[in-house]
């Protein structure tokens, strides 16, 4: 029987495609067997480390168990770029924030990162809370955060008319900003890939063995020999560390937080990140009402809610109701409920040391643990640099690549383009004139480009282009995106998944069930 090799898939003619459906990336079934540095985990930490390493002449590989980048904690991040007042002076987290702020502007520019510096207002409702924000201000100043200012109720309301007028004062942090969190991971990933980093999806590390040259990392898709391992596996970093017998830290996954996304119609009403104090003793636990980069409104309240397992991302009704209730306290005059688009939960990987962990394992030189509790997103650039420094100290030769290209361009978004730019785009490729997702104005051109850049699933397209993220939640565009994915990837629509293996959207062809029955 002849085998057909059609770009993305390999299948037997005449066989049911769904029986042998495979992934885009799996065709290379680990053709590399050797690398200098292997990074485990393609979240914000792994991708920013990969990009930093891609500046040097060496072989770097990145393995990810999911079919796409950023599908762990990064996906559920709010994308706040913290100015750095909330973390105590001298902690590694605080240093990483400070160092990252020295380079963010440059990196945002190089990588075409979606970012808005909108500022934060931390509200205080009583005398105790006023003291809290005053202390926060002093700590921020000690940390080198600029522009901090305590505002009166009146001044706050002038900046942000929807804030609860019952506040006593607010701390204004003008340097706070918002990223599109998924866009951020993509930016690092795409630039790392363009500079030669090999990336393998749906590749799960199962065992790590020692070898004279370094490590043999066993995965579900074959073995990889590497001199160095960077463990950036997020929630799973403890599991990976234990593979070499390193028990120096533990990760708890008992903080699940729920966040609700509201219609863009409300996003226009709030201009700043508005936060309220959730715990008078802890600076970095706060309730939030904020616009997202894409102008939705996001509300969140920290509810210490034990997750059932490390994979548990279910939304609990109690968390949902409390989040709405707390948001109402911060901005009482916004009617949230009729404008809810969706809600999701994420797990925060907190470690037992209460600070960032970025260090060489004591068990084996050449094995680096990276465990970032929040604010991982804010610290991405400094984390990458820190890991490179540790690798250098461990003997990895660093020779700058002459051909390193620091620049990456984001997918051109119609919704953010001027009429002139749109006309030019459509003249070059008329698919940019064909709107597929009506709620977010996403065109066929953008979707095809996202697939070209590696989106292999419905969620992959959604996170890259926002098709399906709007108010109808994919009601209209899902069938169309599935069709484009199938066409571009040379698959049948029945092989398209929501989020990788086991999540096919369409299980049977029309009349197929009747044939089975007869």
């Amino acid at each position, binding site marked *: 029987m002849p085998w057909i090799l059609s770009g993305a898939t390999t299948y037997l003619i005449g066989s049911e495609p769904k029986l042998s459906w495979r992934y885009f990336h799996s065709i290379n079934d680990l053709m590399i067997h050797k690398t200098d540095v292997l990074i485990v985990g393609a979240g914000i930490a792994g991708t920013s480390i990969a990009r930093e390493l891609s500046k040097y002449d060496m072989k770097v590989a990145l393995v990810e168990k999911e079919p796409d980048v950023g599908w762990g904690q990064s996906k559920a991040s709010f994308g706040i770029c913290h100015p750095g007042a909330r973390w105590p002076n001298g902690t590694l987290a605080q240093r990483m924030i400070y160092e990252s702020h020295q380079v963010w502007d440059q990196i945002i520019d190089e990588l075409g990162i979606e970012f808005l510096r909108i500022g934060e207002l931390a509200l205080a409702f009583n005398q105790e809370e006023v003291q809290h924000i005053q202390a926060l201000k002093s700590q921020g100043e000690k940390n080198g955060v600029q522009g901090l200012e305590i505002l009166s109720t009146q001044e706050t309301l002038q900046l942000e008319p929807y804030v609860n007028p019952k506040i006593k004062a607010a701390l204004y942090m003008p340097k706070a900003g918002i990223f599109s969190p998924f866009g951020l991971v993509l930016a690092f990933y795409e630039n790392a890939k363009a500079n030669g980093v090999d990336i393998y999806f749906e590749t799960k590390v199962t065992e790590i063995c020692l070898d004279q040259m370094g490590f043999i990392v066993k995965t579900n898709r074959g073995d990889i020999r590497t001199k160095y391992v960077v463990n950036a596996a997020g929630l799973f970093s403890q599991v990976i560390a234990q593979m070499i017998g390193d028990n120096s830290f533990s990760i708890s996954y008992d903080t699940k937080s729920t966040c609700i996304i509201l219609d863009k119609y409300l996003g226009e009403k709030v201009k700043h990140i508005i936060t309220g104090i959730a715990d008078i003793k802890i600076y970095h636990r706060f309730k939030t009402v904020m616009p997202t980069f894409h102008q939705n409104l996001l509300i969140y309240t920290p509810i210490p809610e034990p997750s059932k397992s490390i994979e548990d991302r279910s939304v609990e009704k109690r968390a949902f109701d409390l989040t709405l209730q707390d948001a109402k306290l911060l901005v009482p005059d916004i009617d949230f409920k009729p404008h809810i688009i969706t809600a999701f939960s994420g797990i925060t990987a907190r470690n037992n040391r209460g600070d960032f962990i970025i260090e060489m394992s004591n068990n084996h030189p050449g094995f680096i643990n990276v465990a970032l509790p929040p604010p991982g997103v804010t610290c991405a650039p400094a984390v990458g640099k820190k890991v490179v420094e540790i690798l250098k100290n461990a003997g990895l030769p660093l020779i700058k690549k002459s051909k390193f290209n620091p620049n990456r361009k984001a997918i051109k978004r119609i919704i953010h383009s001027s009429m002139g730019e749109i006309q030019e785009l459509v003249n070059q490729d008329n698919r940019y004139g064909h709107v597929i997702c009506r709620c977010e104005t996403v065109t066929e051109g953008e979707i095809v480009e996202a697939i070209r850049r590696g989106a292999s699933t419905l969620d992959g397209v959604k996170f890259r282009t926002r098709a399906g993220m709007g108010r109808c939640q994919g009601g209209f565009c899902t069938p169309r995106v599935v069709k484009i994915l199938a066409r571009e990837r040379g698959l049948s629509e029945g092989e398209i998944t929501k989020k990788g293996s*086991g999540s096919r959207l369409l299980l049977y062809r*029309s009349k197929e069930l009747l044939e*089975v029955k007869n």
Partner: protein
Amino acid sequence: MKLKDIDVAVIGAGPAGMAAAVRAKEEGAEQVLILERQEQMGGLLHQCVHNGFGLFYFGQDLTGPQYAHRFAEKVRDLGIRVLLRTMVTQLSSDRQITALSKSEGVINVKPKSIVLAMGCRERSRGQLGIPGSRPAGIFTAGTAQRFVNVEGWIPGRRIVILGSGDIGMIMARRLMLEGAEVMAVVEILPYIGGLTRNEVQCLHDFGIPLFLEHTVTEIHGGQRLEAVTIEKVGRDREPMSGTKRVIECDTLLLSVGLIPENELSRMAGVVIDPLTGGPVVDQWRETSVPGIFAGGNVVHVHDVVDEVSREAEIAGGSAVRFARGGAVEEERKILKPGRNIRYVVPQSITTRHDVTLYARVREMEEDVRLRVGDIFSKYFRVVKPGEMIKIDLTHSQLGLLKGDFVELSIEDIKGRRNG
């Protein structure tokens, strides 16, 4: 591309848009333009392959595509210009339209009048806030309908349907016919949300279990849906303890309501009625912005397409008169929903012309009398939110109205039918 000298521009070529454009042309508008985002006219009718369309408008039992075809032919025969794959992205209060088209790129039009006919969308899972995981296999009923009837794909074989809207019930039958098993239709209210004829023809005739006063309280499954938990609800519509049952299924369809699509209307500054979700309109279907009219499901969600066409015809006719400069300010009376009335459309009327009012009740009620001010009353054995009430009033009746406001209300007359 800039289009000039357009008298009436219609946004949307679904049943409402086609009817509005045809009426505008028939009433003498020279240049009528339809802007449609899809690749063909007809809107969602294409995926409605079942029958039951046109009973009122054509006096015939048609399928959705047949119904659409009749109007599409009229549009063609009358020489109405249709731009397909053209999505309006901006609309201003001075009637400036900006659209994006696959063939032309950016299109600018400033017509003399506009008819909004964007229709409605389905409420999604996120809006309901159903707790649980987020696996594949959860679709709105309309999305599933497109997959089954247009794309030729069946989402799964063990189906639970939340909500008893018409599309949900029709999809229950459709999937049974495809060999899938519909495990349950779950409705939070004590009665169905759609039309009685669909309850009988789609659920009862196919032996599909209907769980009234139940709702889905949790979604299970990692990658693909594995099961849902349903629970009985009390009078407050909150789940009652001890009533949990888990139904194994691979697909959950949602048929939990439709929302008029008014993002463009808002952009143009059109005042939206929070009760209908659509623009506040007068009896000519003019919105709060002069020269912008609206008809069909963008105004309020109708039960049957025949009424969508009729309402859009009013808007199309009025748009022509406006384009000719024929708008006359008249004294208006505001209609107000009273006891057990969720909304009334139009929201204001003149008293010099006959008018048809459309109203929906909040709750099901038996043995009631509907009253319009003190000029009209009618007995109903039962009123249900799922069945729109239509009230024809003549100008001679309306002439008796006093004051600026008219209240519609449902009066409970149990035991005193003639009272």
